[in-house]
């Protein structure tokens, strides 16, 4: 059985080239649920703060839902490093941010 999230990931092969499909798909699902966006329209390098309707509380609601889904809690440095959709995917996977600063917040 193919979930709707998997179908969306398959339709957008540019998303999450380094992350398992389920993490990427869950991020797109969470963005869609909170912001009312079509997941296919969200680019992996899109800055989260510029997505239509995004504000700080909504971003944390999205992160909170994803933490629960994946059974993790991001620490401050991981949270502070999240700027793009891909950053969020990486953080949930426990990988460093694209600029390598995760875990070194403030430096």
């Amino acid at each position: 059985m193919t979930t709707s999230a998997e179908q969306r990931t398959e339709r957008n092969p540019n998303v999450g080239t380094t992350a398992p499909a389920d993490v990427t798909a869950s991020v797109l699902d969470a963005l869609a649920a909170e912001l009312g966006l079509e997941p296919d329209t969200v680019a992996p390098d899109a800055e989260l703060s510029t997505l239509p309707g995004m504000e700080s509380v909504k971003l944390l609601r999205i992160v909170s839902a994803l933490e629960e889904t994946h059974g993790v809690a991001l620490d401050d440095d991981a949270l502070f490093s999240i700027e793009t959709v891909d950053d969020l995917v990486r953080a949930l996977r426990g990988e460093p941010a694209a600029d390598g600063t995760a875990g070194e917040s403030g430096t």
Partner: protein
Amino acid sequence: MTRPTGAPAPAGARGADGWLDALHRIVPTPDRYLRFDTDRDSALAVMRCSPEVLDRLMEAGLRHRTEGDRVLFDDSDIRNVAAASGSGGSVLELVQRYLFRFAVSDPSEWTDARAWAIRNLGACPDDPGCREPWQFAPLAAGDFAGRSWDERVTDGPVDARGATVDGHPPLAEFTATVRTVGAVRRVRDPLVRDAFHTSLQEMRTGRMYYQAMPTELRNDPEAARANGTANCISVSLHLERVFTDAGLEARTRKGYLMGILGSDHSWVEVREDGEWKVVDPVFALLGLRQGASEEFVEFCLGSVPNRLVPCDCPADLETVRHTHQQSPAPTRNVVLVNPLKEIPS
């Protein structure tokens, strides 16, 4: 970078039952302090629940007043129901969970140098187009060996990129860049230590229910204690009185709490060994709720966290002040924080 979700994990969504249960667990705002000044849109912006849930809460006894086609609520009741809802998604739940996540990190992260961009947005619940003046308390980052730059007040329409202040349009803002650094200190005085632990225990056991209160109530620590409620301001003012009655030098401070979100905060300081030491049982309580250790509790008994930015602000005033029709008016404000990767020297 990540850790397993354990005991401090956020409450899961409990649905409408959680909201209804919360309504009966909070301490309602006493009648003499009730102020119906929060409209339905603002309530929903704070609670982040569905309109249907708010309807069910009203049917179940959430106090409200109807004025024409407007339904108005008491702001503290709304915030407290949201905080107790277990929904995991209300503003207060998110603030408490994410602002205090640092408390379970390595202790070195409680004091290392940090830099932040702050925006404090103000709104007038009485008039979305209000043009009367605003004041913001200046930062006093130097009191904690920090520094601030570019403090600015914009009194007029604010471009907040769609962000609202509890559903209201922001009408003024304070912005600044600030560098913070913590310091490990320890209070020795047994009276102060006992008072800190007593206060913390009162809140942990629910003898003093930690929750939001109207300004007049939280600024009157005796009345707050008689009501069985506590928040950062009432606790700080109470402890300041205990300490000064014992002949100690103490002062209540107002300021900002930095993190992925920001918040106003208040704490008490006591002078010992020639330096001011932060005494903050609310900080300890909220850290413990996220799974912090007893080491963090001890940290809250004298040390300066790198998350606090003091303001030059009297204890009984807010960091943001506004007049409406020539008299002081209740304000709404939201503190937005952007952690900076580069730390200005």
